């Protein structure tokens, strides 16, 4: 089944904040496999992530992100800080944040929810499980859920 992530007739843009190129590629693969019609924008650190969201500098012309897939452990400014800044910034607070981390740490999970992450997903090791996760994201966040415009 092919889902089209649309919002007001536009292709949905998802910002993937991920420093590992392997994971980026894997995510791209998974998104492709899941047949999601989204524009996946990628930044590899927290500073860039916030600049993108605020459409600053070279990100000024980029499409605004409707959703953020956020890794927690990042160079320069890590995912936790990005989350905290986003949720305390009125303009960015409404953008859903899906935390995607290899960490299964209870502390990380609590931290994420405490700072209004929309959900916390542990990256599975197994490819099939990973694909299933991406399918689940597609089914829920891009199909069931109505995202803010």
């Amino acid at each position: 089944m092919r889902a089209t992530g649309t919002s007001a007739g536009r292709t949905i843009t998802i910002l993937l904040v991920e420093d590992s190129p392997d994971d980026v590629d894997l995510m791209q693969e998974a998104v492709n496999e899941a047949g999601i019609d989204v524009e996946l924008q990628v930044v590899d650190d927290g500073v860039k992530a916030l600049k993108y969201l605020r459409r600053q500098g070279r990100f000024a012309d980029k499409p605004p992100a409707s959703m953020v897939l956020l890794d927690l452990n990042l160079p320069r400014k890590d995912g936790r800080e990005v989350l905290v800044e986003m949720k305390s910034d009125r303009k960015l607070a409404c953008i859903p944040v899906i935390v995607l981390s290899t960490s299964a740490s209870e502390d990380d999970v609590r931290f994420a929810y405490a700072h209004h992450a929309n959900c916390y997903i542990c990256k599975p090791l197994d490819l099939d499980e990973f694909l299933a996760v991406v399918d689940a994201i597609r089914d829920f966040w891009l199909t069931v859920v109505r995202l803010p415009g």
Partner: protein
Amino acid sequence: MPLTASPSVQRGKGMSQEEQKGRAETVRIRIPLEFRKKGEGEEGGLEEKVELARLTAPIAREPARAAQQQKEVSADRDPFCNQLLLNIYDGLIITDLEGRIIETNARASTLLRYRPEEFLGRQVTDLIDGADESLLKDIGQNISHEKFTMIEGFCQRREGGEFPAEVTVNMIRLPDRELFCFFVRDITKRMELEIELLRLSKAAESAADAICITDQEGHHVYQNPAFTELFGYTFEQLVADGGIVKLFADEEVERAFADGIDAAGAWAGEVEMLRRNGRKRIPVYMRANAIRDEEGEMLGLICVHTDMTERRRAELELRRAHDDLEKRVTERTQELQKSNERLQKEVSERKHAEEELKRYARDLEHSNRELQQFAYVASHDLQEPLRAVVSYLQLLERRHKEALSEDAIRFIDRSVAAGKRMQNLIRDLLEYSRVGTNGAPFVEVNINSVVETVLEGLHLAIEETGAEVIFGDLPTVVADPGQIEQLLQNLIANAIKFRRGDPLVTISARRVEKARKKVDRGGKSMAELRVHEGWLFSVEDNGIGIEQEFAGRIFRIFQRLHTVKEHPGTGIGLAICRKIVERHGGDIWVQSEPEYGATFYFTLPDLPAQKQGD
């Protein structure tokens, strides 16, 4: 001259007549005195005068005749001789060689209380005790007219009574006959003096103090036995050595003594004097006093020395005892000071140790934080590439399945399985590292409800295996609830996992008192287990059990007794259990025998509940 009386004086005035008679022989000591004819001295002069007396009268045997003869004798004499005889100090009795009195003088009458005529014809031996016939015979035979024999004895008075007398006898040869002359001298006064002297001398002799006397020129003249004893000098030795002044140990003292005597005639002081043998110094208290006659003329010096050796020794001993006491007090004080210093040192050492401990605790905390950080980063950073390896292998298989041989696919599967196992290890490691660092505060936890929660979590495994878990009446303890849950979960899960047939798990608890007991922790050695007051829990199963020699090993991280194929797992469970129990101050061990199940014991000491956030 020592103050020793001549033996004759021993017949004292106080003696009865009987005693005197009984001792007559002691009196009868003749002392021949050789009169030197030098023409000087009274005695010589006397002799001359006696020589002049011409006693020529015939001696009558009958008293009447004798009286007649006496008159004749008197008449015969010239007036000078008569006057001389009458007036000499001694009583004069002239006898014939048989001892019959033929002539006396006035002094003899005064002394013996006879009228002159009453003497005549009497035996002189009746009047003078000691002048018996044998004496007369001896004198007659042995004594020439130029010699005197002196006897000391008692003279009998006419009316009775006697007096001590010194009687000098000599023989006079006249042209026609020989006569005896007895010169009687009353020595009562001299005897009294001698007795007095004897008394004084006896007192001095028996005195405990050393006494000596010197004459006016400082010559040593007397010393008592105590003196001899004390200074080790005989009288002669000290005289030879130069007298009392040689005894002074210090010249200065000697001078002070001499000055004192010169100025005041007396001196007293504590001095050191030298003993003869070895010149040992003797401490004495010396008192010296001048001896003066009635006119105040100094006749000599009497020195009394009290031996102070004993007293000095006693004083020394007292001082020693005192010093000893002081020394002991000092020592004790020092000891106290030392022990005080030791205590202070101990206190400071303890403080130091405490600070060390605090620093150690800080270091530990720091290193724990670092470890946690490390474990977190490691688990994350290790998992990223691992995920990539596993995922891309799987992607490879997925995309190119047709192009891959069966072997290739099998290899990929193996690699993926190994990667997954590695991920488990990484996660367990992380979890293990978090036991010590990410604990929750200790609060009251009801173990019954913990077990119930655990069993709910394990319900799939329990249903699958048909396991039966028996528990009940488990206590409430103070512990980290999450960790206690994990502990029991691991133990119960293990009991089910390593089953043999239908698993039966029994959980129980009992109180233990504070004690030390030997516990077999590894089969090889008996370890001493600290058991504080608290609870001893046991989780008993009827599973495969383990060999006791591996009992200690299973609590170490990643130590496994079985292959992954037999019993999957990383071998972290019991290591985490141990870490949890130790964090609670308890201990964990196992008793088991292969095929007879295993019983895991752990203790949880009574702890005070902590406030949240501690």
